[in-house]
């Protein structure tokens, strides 16, 4: 039994043309038993900044709460909202602080910076950051998601196309993983709005 596959689940984020999308499955399970169908692993960290924490469910909740603690204080001290790069820096920092007793999550950050340029970043459980130009994946179905993203993604997708691409990538990857799936939620972040959609998936 691996701790990272105790609860299961997956998160993917993609860059588009002046937009980003981030999506997560909704299953909450304990090993092979499914308990909940509304466990969104994605949280809002700013008006155009979202972060997902796939991995051990308790750490999904705790890491989110502890990061919120830090960003709340930052925003009060500095009188400004966290930018995606700074947020990513804080995530990496928090994880590395627990280098020898880590949180079992592999966070995914997606947002638009001050100039509405897309930013995505993924981390391993001890805070190594990876901020590429195309897509990032994490979770028990990450290998399946890599395959789907590599074939479906292309640069400069508009918000509507990006939604289709990220939904197909997530859903088909989760269908090939016993402990991911049971519903999906997709966030498309553009400069003037954020659209959240639930995607109908196989419920098994």
């Amino acid at each position, binding site marked *: 039994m691996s701790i990272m596959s105790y609860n299961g689940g997956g998160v993917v984020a993609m860059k588009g043309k002046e937009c980003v999308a981030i999506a997560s499955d909704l299953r909450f399970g304990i090993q092979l038993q499914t308990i909940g169908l509304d466990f969104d692993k994605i949280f809002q960290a700013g008006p155009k900044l979202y972060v997902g924490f796939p991995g051990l469910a308790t750490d999904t909740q705790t890491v989110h709460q502890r990061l919120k603690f830090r960003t709340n204080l930052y925003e009060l001290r500095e009188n400004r909202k966290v930018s995606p790069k700074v947020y990513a820096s*804080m995530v990496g920092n928090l994880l590395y602080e627990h280098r020898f007793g880590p949180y079992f999550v592999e966070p995914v950050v997606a947002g638009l910076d001050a100039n509405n340029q897309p930013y995505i970043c993924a981390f391993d459980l001890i805070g190594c950051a990876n901020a590429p130009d195309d897509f990032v994946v994490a979770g028990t179905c990450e290998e399946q998601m890599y395959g789907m993203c590599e074939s479906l993604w292309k640069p400069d997708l508009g918000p509507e196309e990006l939604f289709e691409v990220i939904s197909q990538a997530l859903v088909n990857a989760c269908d090939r993983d016993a402990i991911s799936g049971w519903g999906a939620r997709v966030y498309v972040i553009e400069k003037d709005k954020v659209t959240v959609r639930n995607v109908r998936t196989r419920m098994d």
Partner: protein
Amino acid sequence: MAGTSERYSFSLTTFSPSGKLVQIEYALGAVASGAPTIGIKATNGVVLATEKKHKSFLCDESSVWKIESITPNIGMCYSGMGPDYRLLVKNARKAAQTYLLQYGEQIPTIQLVQRVANVMQEYTHSGGVRPFGVSLLICGWDNGKPALLQCDPSGSFFPWKATAMGKNFTTGKTFLEKRYNPDIELQDAIHTAILALKESFEGQMTAENIELGLVTERGFRRLTVPEVQDYLANVL
């Protein structure tokens, strides 16, 4: 700070019957008898100017500086006790690097000032220590805007458009009140700062007995002796 301050659990800075913290008043006295420092915020930068009088001509002026950089965008100067200043410079540099490590971004000037001022305040509240005998002038450039702030021994900090500290600071401030305007540009500000310093200068002002520091969009730097010489030649 180990040793003595661990044995004292009580603060040495206590209230007088009138509600004053006399130690802080005395610390401000130490500042007011220190060498003068001027700071002027222009539209396109900030200038710091300070007198660096040496006790004898045997002193090597180029070995020790009063104006120090904290980050590429923030510089600092003082009036008062040199050794206390050195500790605060070390502290400020560490705070700036800690911020960079956590947030991946250079520390904004006001955030640095808050952290340094917090340290200064702790020394008025902790056991077995005395307040710092310095007032600091911190200048920086954040997001296209210049910033100039003063930190006092009490731990309070003030943003300034232009200010003077140290000996004859009231004369300096009066001079600046007359000469300052909100549209002043950096070159003019440097000129004004040198003149303000000259008001209370005893003896001949040379490039070796004053220091100048500038912060612009390109960052903070201390001017070299030849550069100071050029500015002095235009003023004197």
